[in-house]
């Protein structure tokens, strides 16, 4: 057991059929310092618990629960969204529903509002958090990851007595080996004049994980040519990533959805799709040009 006094004790005996000798404990943190203290005390035995939509399904994946969880969903500063003139700051425990609602009137964030507002189903969106989406290494189909990649987001990582800010791309590289006691606390997104869109292909219209995701953000010069482009692909490979060659191909000319899809078809073989029970690897790659087309059409209409 951790030294933190507020942990719910493991029970080693009881009458309920669901009790196990090593049942995990849950500490409900009411402040960020308390959460960081608890995570620090737990060390490698502990993990943050945000929305719980991934952790609670551990038994289905035949994965053991962590011995101790620190629930962070009731920490006020982690459930706040701050919208300033030049930046949007999102607490890690903000739910998808809250994020979609907060960004609804900011067209430059269509990509993120769509990612948060269309993922999974309404009840999942009310529970799942943006920080959980970014921090869960095993979840390849997280909608917010490519959306935030194309928005050049940074994340704040906090631990007891320390805090650092890193780009999201770097965070995705280091997250599997993040030291115990460190917690993603904030997502920082710069505000820019840009058109954005999020195209996803679930197996059904809603409720499923997408086979593939294309998130797009483009800014235009005075002649309506693409000045800068950010395109991120999610769910195709185990970790979402930017499609830099396609980005470069779009710059310097008007955004033409058909042409963008043609280039995407030429470049799609740089992705190695992931195989899964529901879909073969090749299918995820093969739908990318169509999703690029959809994203470009949606961005132009934004």
């Amino acid at each position, binding site marked *: 057991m951790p030294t933190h006094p507020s942990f*719910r*004790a493991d*029970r080693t005996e*009881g*009458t*309920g*059929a*669901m*009790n*196990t000798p090593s*049942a*995990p*404990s*849950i500490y*409900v943190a009411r402040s960020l310092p308390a959460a960081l203290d608890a995570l620090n005390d737990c060390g490698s035995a502990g993990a943050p*618990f945000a929305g*719980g*939509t991934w952790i*609670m*399904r551990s*038994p*289905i994946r035949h994965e053991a*629960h962590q011995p101790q*969880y620190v*629930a962070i*969903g009731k920490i006020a500063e982690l459930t706040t969204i701050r919208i300033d003139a030049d930046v949007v700051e999102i607490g890690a425990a903000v739910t998808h529903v809250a994020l979609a609602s907060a960004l609804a009137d900011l067209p430059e964030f269509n990509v993120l509002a769509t990612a948060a507002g269309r993922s*999974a*189903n*309404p*009840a*999942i969106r*009310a*529970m799942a958090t943006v920080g959980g989406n970014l921090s869960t290494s095993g979840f390849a189909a997280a909608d917010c990851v490519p959306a935030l990649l194309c928005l050049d987001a940074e994340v704040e990582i906090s631990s007891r007595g320390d805090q650092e800010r890193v780009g999201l791309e770097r965070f995705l590289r280091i997250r599997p080996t993040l030291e115990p006691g460190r917690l993603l606390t904030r997502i920082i997104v710069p505000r820019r004049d840009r058109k954005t869109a999020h195209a996803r292909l679930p197996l059904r*219209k*809603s*409720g*499923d994980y997408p086979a593939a995701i294309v998130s797009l953000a483009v800014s235009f010069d005075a002649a309506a040519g693409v000045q800068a482009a950010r395109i991120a692909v999610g769910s195709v490979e185990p970790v979402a990533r930017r499609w830099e060659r396609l980005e470069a191909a779009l710059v310097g000319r008007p955004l033409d959805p058909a042409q963008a899809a043609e280039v995407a078809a030429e470049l799609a073989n740089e992705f190695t799709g992931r195989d899964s029970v529901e879909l073969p690897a090749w299918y995820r790659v093969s739908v990318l040009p169509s999703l690029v087309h959809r994203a470009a059409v949606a961005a132009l209409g934004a």
Partner: protein
Amino acid sequence: MVQNLTVNGDRRSSAADPITPLVDVLREDFHLTGAKPVCREGFCGACMVLLDGAPILSCLVPAALAEDCEILTVEGLATDGGLTPIQSALEACDAVQCGMCFPGMVVTLTHLLTAKPGATRDDIRAALTGNICRCTGYERIVEAALIAVAAK
């Protein structure tokens, strides 16, 4: 450690482990079997209950995090033997089929009619995207919800 929960207005205690899904505590400890643990992934909606008035998937909520909340299950919707408007409409439309998904449907629609009294067909369909019916009986359920909306 005992979990103290407020379910359908009653204070209840459970000796289940803190991480135990709320749906299991409701069913195994409190014998409230309306919520069904069908997929345990949050995709089917059969375990839906109201937590402080909001529809939640009780298969994904640990019992420890439901403390200090008002839990309302499908068993707690009707009071004094009288059905709620959505329950009455569903009965009148003969919308109930095998019953596996149905408690979740009722809970979702109860919330929708409270949060959006003028809900449209599209609103109803959107609200039900997380409630899967394997009998493919959505249309009568949607019609019943529209009747309940119109009756308000």
